[in-house]
């Protein structure tokens, strides 16, 4: 099972880039935490979700 933002996600084998595209998230406004570590944006095309992963995608919105 893979959990993203606390919910089970059917993303086995998918890259982070593919996941962001599926959700309609712009890569330049997110931070992706995977199993406790923030993943470098340079790695979004290479890192694939595997069974047991727990991720949080933080999508930043404007305002401050």
């Amino acid at each position, binding site marked *: 099972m893979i959990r993203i933002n606390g919910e089970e996600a059917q993303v086995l084998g998918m890259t982070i880039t593919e996941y962001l595209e599926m959700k309609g998230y712009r890569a330049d*406004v997110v931070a992706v935490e995977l199993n406790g570590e*923030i993943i*470098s944006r340079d790695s979004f095309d290479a890192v694939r979700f595997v069974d047991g992963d727990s991720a949080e995608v*933080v*999508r*930043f*919105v*404007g*305002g*401050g």
Partner: protein
Amino acid sequence: MITENEMWEMLSMRHTPDVCRRLREARVAVAGLGGLGSQVAIMLARCGVGMLHLIDCDVVETSNLNRQAYRTCHLGKRKVDALAEELLTIQPYCRVLLTHVRMDEGNAVDILRDDMLIIEAFDDAAAKAMLVNTVLTQTKDKVVIAASGMVGHGDSNAIRTERVNRRLYVCGDRASDLADGLALMAPRVMICAGHQANLAVRLILGEE
């Protein structure tokens, strides 16, 4: 004029000596001195945080007056200078380090090399993500308190503090977006700034 001894004595009486000492020994960086950053910096100075590193590239404009900690006499001044002036009228014994520069992926780590606790207080979503990603992937132990979602005059209680991991916390409602056409207003921006400042105090005091 209050003397330095009187100021720290007052804070020690108010906060207890141990809490006062730990806040006085702390250093916090504030990246972006708009509605969030200007208010966070003033709150931390009032708490007796000993050193603030203030980072911003803008000057004070009329459109800032609806929510940022500046006054009409500051119009046209660099925000780093205007905020330092304002802070030091409240707490003359807070040490301020001023960096007037636009942060990007190339300079952020160097600018923040001596800072361990960083308040992300930019208004642009991509700038927020840039700072969080750069600091957390290029350094090993710095902690970032970011903000996302405080636009408009929606529910106050939708603004919350969440821990993503041991190095990243996000304050805000995580949804209300400047891009949706809502305006930034002082109350909700200050609620979010209060979340960031209180979390900074809690982290300094080892309570998170």
